[in-house]
């Protein structure tokens, strides 16, 4: 593994492999995450959660809890503040139903059923235990076979559940080879290292929150509705998120409960759910059962691609893992159809989780493709190339850019794909382990949301950019500052960059791999606004060496405006502003999807992931020994950070393939592994030598800056590549994910 990173130079800052600007604070333990705040007089709150999955709470021993030394108050449906809006009302887009003590109903295990507020965390925690709830229990519906199958109105965020392009039955009938396989993926939990903490305090009808969130304005809107106050009266500090992965996209019930507890007691309240309490009210990746039917002609051209998905949502709300979506964009086929069906279960409501839909769908389709390729006696990579989508399937739109061929080529070269035996179980290493290799295609849509930013340049030559953007680890503090610095033509030293607070302009949600595009383009636009005004001042001022250059005739860099046609004629920002008697120039910028471009083009990031695994031939234990990913995602703002995003995604792909699975007892709906000892995510020793190749890609269509997202694409492709590599090593095709050693004992 190499740690040299080549700068991909676009501007002075953009493209530079800068280290994280928040790095020094984070390595010194000085970056303040939400739960690190403890305003004077703060009370501690602990949740009491349901141990049944369906029914109602019959009793809570409030007296026992209140008698415990240090307990101040027990909040139950009896005394919980009544909300201004039914928390189950979905009158605003992006609303998820939450359980916040408005009734005694239990809809899933680990649902909050009471909150104990105390002077100390120890007292609150014991108070919650002393409540010793009793229940009226109904038989829970757990597992994909437990509910009645129906077709949801929409999957993911507003996507159609069924899409058909051509006649798949005819395609299958005409195919030289067909393959049918059913793949299962389990429920997975985000498990951000930082729990969904909230430190809430009220000042009259104004609410202050230290709370990690991936969407400040969404959170403000939700809380404002629930508490009947103005969004602007809610101040949220979220400078750092300890991971989100989708689970902090909307406020979770326990965070709302912290606000309610603060209101009930009139004191600041800190509520940090325990790890196990995060399995339920914070969303998860819904389970899927996916049946792929594929057909190809003799030459390996896909004639039919049929993807059926059965998934699950909760009994009371809608989020359906859109696992088929990836099939509509990935490969060219004469006919393609996707269809989602679902059941309702007594679990918490699923939610978008890193690579929602794409991750689950990718592992199934990439596995199925390999199964058919083997039947066709074709190299899996050649098979993918044979079905390369030159235009987006279904829509027929050209891609705004698609350097996937280059990803395949460079990835294969770096990995050493050539010469791979087609047959499985052909290779052993010197220690006798079975060795196998596999490939998977990575893809994720290049999204952009609506966002705003403001910028200013001051007479002393310094500047500020402000935006309600969020850093959950992707590196927004650094990458967005790089965009800001280049936009204002300043060095990083002259730039003040603020983000992570709801007082700043709304930058939309940090999700969908669209945050750098959204916030970056908003920042860029705000900076352009400032530079435009500054240029206006200079080119119309006879005293300026830039006089008469015209608005398009200057560039901003190094704190100066410079004539494009004559670099010797330039002037500092400071000189321009001082002469004009202006203390500063302020600007605003917006970003959003370009409807015309979206109508004409398909926009996706792409990649190819190659995996090598070793499998113990007798014991079945698997270890990934190499992972190489090559990704093309438009302009790279900071290759250092982007590489880390790819690595992170690839590790999630490894985790998807080999480790993660939430287990429940179907009799009770209770979790069997709602902890980090038994819900396995990879440890350091699971992670092999990795390589991420950044394939250059220019895209003048996708957005002004030409950036696509990099946060989620790494999972796609990787899980399938590993599943394929395990088959190649062992000859055993595991269609029930995760691939655990018991399935490889032969």
């Amino acid at each position, binding site marked *: 593994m190499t740690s040299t990173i080549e700068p991909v130079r676009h501007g002075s800052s953009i493209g530079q492999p800068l280290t994280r600007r928040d790095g020094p604070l984070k390595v010194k333990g000085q970056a303040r995450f939400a739960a690190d705040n403890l305003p004077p007089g703060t009370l501690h709150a602990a949740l009491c959660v349901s141990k049944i999955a369906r029914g109602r709470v019959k009793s809570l021993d409030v007296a026992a809890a209140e008698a415990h030394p240090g307990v101040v108050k027990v909040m139950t449906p009896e005394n919980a503040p009544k909300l201004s809006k039914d928390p189950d009302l979905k009158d605003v887009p992006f609303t998820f139903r939450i359980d916040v003590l408005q009734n005694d109903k239990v809809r899933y295990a680990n649902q909050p059923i009471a909150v104990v507020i105390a002077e100390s965390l120890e007292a609150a*925690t014991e108070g919650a235990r002393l409540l010793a709830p009793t229940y009226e229990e109904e038989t829970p519906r757990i597992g994909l076979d437990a509910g009645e199958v129906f077709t949801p109105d929409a999957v993911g965020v507003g996507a159609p559940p069924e899409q058909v392009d051509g006649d798949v039955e005819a395609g299958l009938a005409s195919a030289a080879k067909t393959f049918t396989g059913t793949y299962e993926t389990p429920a997975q939990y985000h498990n951000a290292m930082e729990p969904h903490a909230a430190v809430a305090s009220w000042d009259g009808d104004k609410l202050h929150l230290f709370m990690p969130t991936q969407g400040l304005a969404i959170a403000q809107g939700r809380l404002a509705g629930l508490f009947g106050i103005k969004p602007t009266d809610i101040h949220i500090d979220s400078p750092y998120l300890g991971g989100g992965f989708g689970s902090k996209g909307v406020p979770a019930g326990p965070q709302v409960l912290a606000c309610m507890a603060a209101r009930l007691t009139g004191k600041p309240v800190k509520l940090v759910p325990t790890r196990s309490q995060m399995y339920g009210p914070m969303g998860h990746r819904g389970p899927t059962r996916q049946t792929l039917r594929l057909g190809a002609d003799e030459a390996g051209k896909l004639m039919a691609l049929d993807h059926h998905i059965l998934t699950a949502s909760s009994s009371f709300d809608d989020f359906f893992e859109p696992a088929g979506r990836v099939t509509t964009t990935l490969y060219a086929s004469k006919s393609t159809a996707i269809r989602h069906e679902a059941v309702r279960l007594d679990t918490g409501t699923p939610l978008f989780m890193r690579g929602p839909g794409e991750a689950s769908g990718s592992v199934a389709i990439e596995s199925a493709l390999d199964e058919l390729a083997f039947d066709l006696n074709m190299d899996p990579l050649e098979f993918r190339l044979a079905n390369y989508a030159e235009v987006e399937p279904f829509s027929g739109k050209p891609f705004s850019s698609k350097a996937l061929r280059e990803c395949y080529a460079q990835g294969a070269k770096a990995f050493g794909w050539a010469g791979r035996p087609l047959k499985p179980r052909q290779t052993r290493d010197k220690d006798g382990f079975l060795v196998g290799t596999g490939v998977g295609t990575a893809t994720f849509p290049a999204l952009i949301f609506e966002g705003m930013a403001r910028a200013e340049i001051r007479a002393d030559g310094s500047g500020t950019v402000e935006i309600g953007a969020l850093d959950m680890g992707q590196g927004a503090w650094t990458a967005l500052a790089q965009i800001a610095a280049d936009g204002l033509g300043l060095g990083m030293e002259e730039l003040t960059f603020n983000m992570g607070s709801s007082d700043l302009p709304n930058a939309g949600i940090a999700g969908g791999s669209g945050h750098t595009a959204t916030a970056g383009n908003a920042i860029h636009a705000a900076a352009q606004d400032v530079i435009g005004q500054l240029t206006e001042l200079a080119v119309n001022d006879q005293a300026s060496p830039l006089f008469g250059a015209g608005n398009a005739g200057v560039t901003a860099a190094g704190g100066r405006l410079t004539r494009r046609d004559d670099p010797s004629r330039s002037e500092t920002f400071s000189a321009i502003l001082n002469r004009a008697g202006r203390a500063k120039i302020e600007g605003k910028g917006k970003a959003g999807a370009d409807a015309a471009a979206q109508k004409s083009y398909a926009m996706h990031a792409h990649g190819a992931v190659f995996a090598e695994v070793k499998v113990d031939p007798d*014991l*079945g234990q698997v270890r990934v020994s190499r992972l190489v990913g090559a990704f093309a995602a438009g302009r790279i703002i900071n290759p250092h950070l982007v590489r880390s995003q790819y690595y992170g995604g690839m590790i999630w792909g490894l985790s998807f393939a080999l480790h993660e699975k939430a*287990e429940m007892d179907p009799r*009770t709906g209770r979790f069997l592994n709602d902890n980090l000892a*038994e819900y*396995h995510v990879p440890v350091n020793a699971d992670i092999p030598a990795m390589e991420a190749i950044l394939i250059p890609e220019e895209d003048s269509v996708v957005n002004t800056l030409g950036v696509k997202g990099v946060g989620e694409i790494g999972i796609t492709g990787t899980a399938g590549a590993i599943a394929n590599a395990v088959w190649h090593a062992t000859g055993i095709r595991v269609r029930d994910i995760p691939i655990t050693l018991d399935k490889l004992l032969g």
Partner: protein
Amino acid sequence: MILFDYTRAATVADALATGRQPGAAFLAAGTNLVDLMKGGVTNPERIIDITRLPGLSGIEAKPDGSLRIGALARNSDVADDPHVAKTYPMVAEALLAGASAQLRNAATVGGNLMQRTRCQYFTDAVSPCNKRQPGSGCAALGHATRIHAVQGWSEQCIATHPSDFCVPLAALDASVEIEGQGGTRSVKLTEFHLLPGDHPERETVLEPGELITALTLPAEAARFAGNARYLKVRDRTSYAFAVVSAAAAMILDGGKIGQARLAFGGLALKPWRVTEAEASLAGKAPSPEAYAEAARIALDGAKPTGEANAFKIELARRVAVRALTLAAAGTPARLPALPASPFGIV
């Protein structure tokens, strides 16, 4: 966690006196006890902190060739002790394959013996569990998972003991030194943990108030130093409990196995040592056939408790064969980077 009385014992006598009181629990590192108290699984009213008891953390080679390890010695100190590593390498390997470095730095020898099962129905503090609440039933029985027992279980309890350390200790005939009101007694490790039978709430032979003070590895155990391995099959490469593990050791004598030792982890509520399997190896030349025969005998009578753990029986046979093969190949001069892992090839 309930509000408890905290006392720090200054002497063993002190500890024994207070430890007899109802609701008392001894606190050493607390890596298991505090975890269980946080989960409400166990709720001691009185914590007797034994961490300062003098003379209980030493590792001492005795003139008779045995080794005495104080009950308060930390897992990492035992694993890193040069004498232990050299003379009882599979003990060191098992220790280093357990938990994480942080936990090993805290956890004590006595605490390791006393650690409770990871059975989900025991740790959730609410399910029927005969171990936690005698007579309430066994919720695991209808939905056994991969961690549940395939040997030695009863209708009352199908839990397993999670320790790695205890597995080679059982194989090497270690004994447990126990101090009580009536004085000191010594119990073989293989007899220290109790199978569930009709009384899964009784987990060890310790009487209320008794304290483990030391472990002893007999002189005989040192004879296996040259051919001893611990092998642990896990669902992730590190920081995971065993699916199945085995300690295998032998004394090779002129191309033949003089004596062999074989014990398993992950199969039962105690480290599962099978002397019949060991005996089958004695006098034979080391060979895959001999190992397979020993493995077959070792898993005689094994019975799954559900679909999810049936695979462990065959896996355990293979683990036994591999562990014996590794042991026969000789103990490595330095423990592998991934101790006890199938991928820990030196």
